[in-house]
């Protein structure tokens, strides 16, 4: 256990960063299906590239320099009939193959475990480790914008929340290292407390994935997964550095991982990162007090035995985020003055100094994941975690004790047990239970009450594969008891609400050499969040009075999504369409008339429920013109309609079109180069409700991005670097989904340099 305290840094390595299309890595293990023991010297042959390898003593193999697309792997081992399995390579991937040794049942090679964690029929996208390097140093929300169908809800340049198919906050679940992130995620200005440097891959499930992940997974799930542990005894390390011209900021991260020499069963990894930025610059002025600082640590130790594995991890995320001075307003008059001004009313010279108003957040997670073999019929996974989220918001108005105006502390304990049965009649599946206890305590100014929430759920899902067909079905039932406590000065009143609901999902897929189609229909739900029920009073800084409704009912979603993929040597097409029908969709409705207070007029908002229909389409096409020069185009469209009130829904993303090229070539010294450029056009949001917004949606805008990257050789070390320019033409624009649009422009040109240095110690054998 003491290792937990001494590992405090860095991570793995593994992947040689290439922006290269044909530098993908496929790695994994070949295990005996019954005993789960490693199969050494198994042959792994890739038909497409006519290359192969054999597994080492740990059953591990690695194939490098692969091109994206289908990969047919022929795996054979002494005493087994060789089997072919098709996998899709879109990024660096790791699989575990289980080979059937029993001669009576030589039916197939079964993939039972995959880093992409989710293999259902909902559309998924992922950002590979290679791509994560090229966009390193940015907050998670901004990184995810690369995925079609994902937008960000922003509060300026440093606070970004992912929005999937128009849904955000409590409707999008973030799962890091298998643990659902729990903090004050209800707030639209509360960014996810995730350090993207810990991720080996980020996968996005678009749609209602409530069966596996529980309530709240209505819009989708973001899976932040760590890179795999190394399997040799060398210590693997890396240093990632990035510098940004716009905020004169930078970030650095170092990751280390290895395997204990004395205790070969023990593997470990550690990451540390730091991000810093000053006031961001728009083309015409600086955004006063948008500086930020962030430091993160995480580490994990894993212990593996033949019959069980266990991993213990800890992570700490800490950030200070400045809030644009000009956006902190007292009343409607202040807002009107701000809206009429072309430039923010408070400007300052560039500074790294963070003054009030600002947020200080610390998020800590301690978790344990264990898996046990349960005889020959399956294995049991046990996931236990405790996380503590402490959010302090400092207002312009200092409190008399100098402390934060809003201080919220929430602790979440969760436990999950899932039993996965072995493949039976082409069917894999699992059954599980989960429980969560959460308590929230506030001090300072009241906005949401103290509460204790207890949740329990049970789920069952099965997945049948017999190529070209596959099908899946799952069902889950959850209950939640929410007790909240308020103190009016004389007595403490306790309010209890009970919520329960069924989630289900079903899907079918068909996959041929080039074409694959899948359809998924599922239902997910969530109970109203604490602010939707009980918020009462002034939202300081936002000049609004917000009232929750303690009688709100659960919100349910029934979602149907269809996706189609075509992949040939030159052409790749990805299409997704979805219809999401939501019953009891909770939204903030403006109330008339504004409230007259001592501080002037305030608009009044109340949480209401309605029935909504969200329909949309995401498309991505790429075409290889000639060797390693490809053109790309994409589109994301969403229509969000309030069925009850016959009107559009406020704060929904407008249509987005993208286009670009990617060129990979080798120079005279056979050094690989990658050059790419992209253009993004965001249309003006014309589909807004009649209820008055403070200001009309901003005009359409077009941004251009360019990237160039290559490698440097330092002895045996290959250093990857890339230079990119966001908003290349320094366009002044405002975005409909950014709350600062009432006050200021978005940041202008940002040139950034990213460097990735792998460090590998000699593989000492003792």
């Amino acid at each position: 256990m003491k290792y937990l305290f001494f590992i405090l840094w860095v991570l793995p390595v593994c992947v040689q960063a290439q922006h290269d299309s044909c530098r993908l890595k496929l790695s994994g293990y070949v295990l005996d299906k019954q005993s789960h023991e490693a199969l050494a010297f198994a042959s792994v042959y890739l038909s497409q590239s006519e290359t192969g390898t054999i597994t080492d003593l740990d059953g591990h193999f690695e194939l490098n320099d692969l091109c994206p697309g289908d990969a047919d792997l022929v795996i054979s081992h002494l005493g087994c009939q060789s089997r072919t399995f098709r996998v899709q390579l879109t990024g660096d991937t790791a699989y575990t193959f289980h080979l059937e040794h029993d001669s009576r049942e030589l039916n197939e090679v079964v993939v039972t475990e995959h880093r992409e964690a989710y293999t259902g029929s909902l559309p998924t996208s992922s950002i590979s480790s290679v791509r994560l390097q090229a966009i390193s140093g940015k907050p998670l929300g901004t990184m995810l914008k690369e995925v079609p169908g994902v937008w960000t809800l922003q509060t300026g340049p440093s606070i970004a929340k992912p929005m999937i198919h128009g849904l955000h906050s409590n409707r999008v679940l973030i799962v890091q290292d298998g643990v659902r992130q729990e903090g004050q995620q209800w707030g639209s200005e509360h960014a996810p407390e995730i350090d993207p440097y810990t991720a080996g891959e980020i996968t996005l499930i678009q749609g209602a994935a409530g069966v596996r992940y529980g309530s709240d997974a209505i819009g989708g799930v973001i899976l932040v997964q760590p890179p795999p542990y190394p399997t040799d005894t060398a210590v693997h390390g890396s240093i990632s550095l990035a510098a940004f011209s716009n905020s004169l900021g930078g970030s650095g991260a170092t990751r280390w991982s290895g395997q204990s020499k004395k205790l070969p069963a023990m593997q470990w990894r550690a990451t540390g990162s730091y991000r810093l930025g000053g006031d961001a610059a728009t083309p015409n002025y600086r955004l006063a007090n948008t500086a930020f600082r962030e430091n993160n640590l995480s580490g994990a130790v894993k212990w593996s035995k033949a019959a069980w594995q266990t991993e213990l991890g800890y992570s700490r995320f800490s950030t200070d985020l400045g809030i644009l001075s000009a956006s902190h307003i007292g009343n409607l008059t202040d807002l009107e003055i701000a809206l009429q001004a072309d430039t923010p009313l408070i400007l300052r010279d560039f500074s790294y100094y963070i003054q009030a108003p600002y947020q200080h957040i610390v998020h800590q997670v301690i978790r344990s994941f264990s898996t046990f073999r349960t005889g020959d019929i399956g294995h049991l996974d046990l996931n236990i975690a405790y996380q503590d989220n402490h959010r302090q918001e400092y207002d312009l108005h200092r409190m008399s004790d100098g402390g934060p105006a809003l201080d919220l502390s929430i602790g979440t304990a969760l436990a999950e047990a899932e039993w996965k049965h072995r493949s039976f009649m082409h069917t894999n599946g699992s059954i599980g239970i989960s429980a969560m206890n959460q308590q929230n305590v506030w001090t300072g100014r009241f906005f949401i009450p103290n509460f204790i929430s207890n949740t329990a759920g049970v789920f069952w899902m099965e997945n049948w594969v017999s190529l070209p067909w596959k099908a899946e079905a799952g069902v889950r039932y959850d209950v939640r008891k929410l007790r909240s406590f308020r103190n009016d000065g004389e007595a403490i009143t306790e309010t209890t609400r009970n919520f329960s609901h069924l989630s289900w999902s079903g899907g079918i897929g068909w996959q041929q050499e080039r074409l694959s189609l899948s359809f998924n229909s599922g239902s997910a739900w969530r109970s109203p969040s604490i602010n939707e029920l009980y918020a009462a009073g002034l939202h300081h800084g936002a000049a609004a009075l917000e009232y929750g409704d303690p009688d709100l009912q659960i919100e349910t979603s029934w979602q149907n999504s269809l996706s189609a993929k075509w992949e040939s040597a030159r052409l790749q097409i990805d299409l997704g369409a979805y219809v999401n029908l939501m019953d009891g969709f909770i939204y903030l409705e403006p109330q008339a008339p504004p409230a007259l207070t001592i501080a002037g007029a305030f608009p009044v908002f109340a949480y209401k429920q309605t029935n909504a229909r969200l329909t949309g389409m995401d498309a991505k096409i790429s075409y290889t013109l000639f060797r390693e020069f490809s053109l790309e185009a994409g589109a994301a469209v969403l229509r969000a309609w309030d069925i009850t009130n016959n009107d559009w829904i406020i704060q929904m993303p407008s249509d987005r079109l993208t286009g670009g090229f990617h060129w990979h070539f080798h120079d005279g010294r056979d050094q690989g180069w990658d050059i790419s450029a992209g253009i993004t056009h965001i249309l003006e949001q014309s589909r807004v409700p009649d209820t008055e917004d403070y200001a009309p949606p901003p005009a359409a805008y077009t941004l251009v991005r360019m990237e160039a990257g290559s490698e440097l050789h330092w002895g045996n070390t290959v250093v990857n670097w890339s230079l990119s320019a966001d908003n290349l033409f320094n366009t002044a624009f405002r975005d409909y989904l950014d709350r600062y649009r009432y006050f200021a422009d978005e940041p202008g040109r940002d040139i950034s340099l990213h460097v990735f240095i792998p460090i590998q110690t000699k593989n000492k054998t003792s």
Partner: protein
Amino acid sequence: MKNTLIIAAAAAMFISSCKDAETPQPENESELITTVRLDLVNQSDTTDVSTFYFRDNDGPGGLDPLQWDTVRLAAGTTYDLTIALLDESTLPNGDISAEVEEEGTDHQLFFNIDPASLLAVDYNDSDDNGDPVGLVNVATTSSTGAGTLTVILKHQPGIKDGNQNTGETDVEVEFVLEVL
């Protein structure tokens, strides 16, 4: 396996400490301003004292303001005008004007009169930098008429420069003004 036990123990400890959540502190806004009081003393007859109130004792939202006086003044008169800002939601009442005076370099009161000819308000106090705060003033009426007097308190930490349009509004109360 040990890990599991340790985390389970940590979780159990946490669950047993739920008392925190069950005993919330009382809800009160520190620095709440519920009341604006205008005290006017006729400079040529100090027994001629008028007091006008705006009172909203439960703070923003909730119940409507309790008292909202019409400011009635005599024409052709010069008054000493002092502003009192109070928190009457608690006992004893909070004296916010004292805090404003103390943090004078971060605050300024502004008086908007419509039509402007009804009343002239001149600052008669200053903060540590020699800039006006607006708690003590001289108000002069000339001819009769009716209109409005808006009293505004701005919180302008580090940006106070006499500009009424910057900073955060702490108080903005529009009184009906009659000069008789």
